[in-house]
């Protein structure tokens, strides 16, 4: 747990951070966000004592950081910066092994850890271990930067715009990858960004700063639905409703649905269609194949499979783990009022309608 209470930092006449009180719970992903120069980096760097406080206290797991030896403290926290700062004269393995070597880990343990981390970040150890930083792409370098911060398995990770220097596609890949890793590791993370989409995508709680002051500290949902003031409103932008949807998973908002099998007789299927207005048609394993509604019943077909309107699996079936924003986008694109929701194997698990999304 990280507790900042009444933390102030002044540089001469400039107040970088003013009376900031924020608590980050264990295992929480906290994102610091705000316009340039609002004191995000300063706040982050006060936590690991790279910047001394002017006044106030910062406690980590109940202990005042001011009472700890700075080097000791920093070895227990991962630290990642936008410019990565890999050591150019060391290999990837050497870079990742920096903190373990400061902690004097035995060689075998360090080597095993390096390979484990490279695997975790999707970098094949045998080909990346001995590369030098200048041989890496921006995305690979940043993965190594994050792996390096995780090397000694710190419980706290401080990240200062780690994906800021990457192109949008690489950035999104790394964000997705990193949320997966975070779900596995459950670290306490303080993450600085000025990209609101990144904040909403990753954060458990967002801290919005302006000119060194705390403006709002809340979950992304709350910030999107109840922005504290005009500044927050403007900061999150006019598409905040859509942003909110991007936080929601389709599986949390879908509802159970009626389905018939391809081989079912049209007569039997008809009863279900009459009751629900329509029904999804699935094949043996439950994979969605088509849709039956009142009009399709009137043809001369014998089975549901013959009468159904086929469903485009790639475009009209919503994956259960997709965000509502993505579901909405697909439905608007295909002109659907409701769509089937399927698991990763394509099996029908429910349905979602425009009404469901509007109510979410």
């Amino acid at each position, binding site marked *: 747990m990280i507790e900042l209470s009444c933390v102030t930092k002044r540089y001469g006449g400039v107040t970088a951070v003013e009376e900031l009180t924020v608590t980050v719970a264990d295992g929480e992903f906290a994102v610091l966000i705000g316009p340039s120069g609002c004191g995000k980096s300063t706040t982050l760097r006060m936590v690991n004592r790279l910047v001394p406080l002017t006044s106030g206290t910062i406690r980590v797991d109940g202990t005042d950081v001011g009472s700890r030896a700075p080097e000791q403290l*920093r070895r227990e926290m991962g630290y990642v910066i936008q410019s990565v700062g*890999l050591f*150019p*004269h060391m290999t990837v393995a050497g870079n990742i092994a*920096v903190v373990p070597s400061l902690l004097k880990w035995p060689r075998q343990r360090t080597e095993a850890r390096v390979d484990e981390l490279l695997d975790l970040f999707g970098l094949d150890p045998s080909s990346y271990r001995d590369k030098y930083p200048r041989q890496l792409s921006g995305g690979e370098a940043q993965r190594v*930067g994050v792996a390096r911060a995780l090397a000694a398995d710190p419980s706290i990770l*401080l990240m200062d715009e780690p994906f800021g220097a990457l192109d949008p596609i690489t950035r999104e890949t790394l964000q997705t990858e990193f949320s997966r890793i975070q779900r596995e590791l459950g670290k306490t993370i303080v993450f600085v960004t000025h990209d609101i989409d990144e904040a909403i995508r990753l954060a458990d709680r967002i801290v919005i700063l302006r000119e060194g002051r705390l403006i709002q500290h809340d979950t992304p949902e709350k910030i999107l639905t109840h922005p504290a003031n005009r500044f927050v409103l403007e900061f999150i932008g006019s598409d905040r409703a859509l942003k909110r949807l991007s936080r929601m998973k389709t599986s949390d908002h879908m509802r159970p649905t009626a389905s018939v099998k391809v081989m079912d007789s049209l007569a039997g299927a008809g009863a279900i269609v009459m009751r629900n207005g329509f029904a999804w048609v699935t094949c043996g394993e439950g994979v969605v194949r088509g849709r039956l509604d009142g009009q399709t019943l009137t043809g001369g077909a014998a089975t549901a499979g013959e009468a159904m309107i086929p469903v485009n699996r790639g475009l009209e079936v919503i994956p259960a783990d997709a965000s509502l924003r993505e579901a909405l986008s697909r439905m608007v694109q295909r002109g659907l009022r409701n769509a089937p929701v399927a698991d990763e194997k394509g099996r029908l698990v429910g349905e979602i309608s425009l009404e469901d999304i509007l109510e979410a």
Partner: protein
Amino acid sequence: MPPLLLPRKVPLTASVLGLGSSLLLGFVTFRANRLAAGEAIRLLQTGPCGGPVLMAAWIILATTSILKIPERWVNFTLGLLPGALVPTALKVAGGQAERTALASGDIARVSLGAAFWVSLFAAAVIMLDAWHTGGLRRKLTLFSATLGIAVTVYLMVSGEMSHLSILREFINRRERFTGELMAHLALSSSAVGMAVLLGLPLGILAHRKARLRGGAFFVLNTLQTVPSLALFGILIPLLAALTSRFPVLGEAGIQGIGTAPALIALTVYSLLPVARNTFAGFSSVDPAAVDAGRGMGMTGSQLLVRVEFPIASPIILNGIRVALVQAIGLTAVAALIGAGGFGVFIFQGLGQAATDLVLLGAIPTNLIAAAADALLNGLIGVANPRGLR
């Protein structure tokens, strides 16, 4: 019809230079005694067969450089001949000296003449060009140059050349020579050692403290522009005054003339390249790497040893290389204030108008400067971290 001529400019120019100088200038100089006026003897006026052989070598080199012939032949000729030419030229000069000694007695002197030096230079140019050409020609050059140097050393040591004036000067001063060699090496290396001890922290400090930077480099730059003789001149009365004021300094061996002022002056000159390159090396370290290192919990000294110094080391070593080459040259001047070293021979020779004595000081000075240069360059190659290349 394919063109008959394909001039290779560098070897062509060099071999024409070698040929022309051998035809027109004196290959060795004859003097009735050590201080008498010299009389130039051209290559073809020397002994029976040496002269024509050397001339033929130059003609072959020149024609190879201009004719369109298979590249293999060119490689063999340009790669092997220059290396063989150097000891041959020395042998020709040595032979002439020996015959002269027999004919005119031991007080007559034969020294190396302009054509010999120009030929040496021209051969070196062809070898350097071959080195840059690379491939087979480079390998052959390396082979012939190594062999050439070995034979040259053998000729010098075996006594075959002992009638040449420069070796006569050497033989007369054999003990002195070793002593001055040691003095020269000791003085220049301890000056650079001092400069490293002072310049490393100074350069690091200049990197860390912006306020110090301007002043420190202004002083060092200014000192660097003071002519060495003037600096020695200033130090003599200064140290003399100091020792008369504090006799304990005198007892410690510090005098107005001799090693002390020379060491101080040489250290001052070496300080700028060392400090400046240390500063440049540390400035070349990405601030993000330093920030990351601190953020991961490195102490100041761990950061210095594990991150900043390894990244800066090639640039720092380059500064030490410059300082060392410069100090070896300046040490020769320091002989003027009684610090010893090869400058002793140079200034004695100048005083006596004995060119060969001057060369006895100047040639080894240049050789050790070149050796120091090569040594440090090798070290830079080894120290340069792979990730930075």
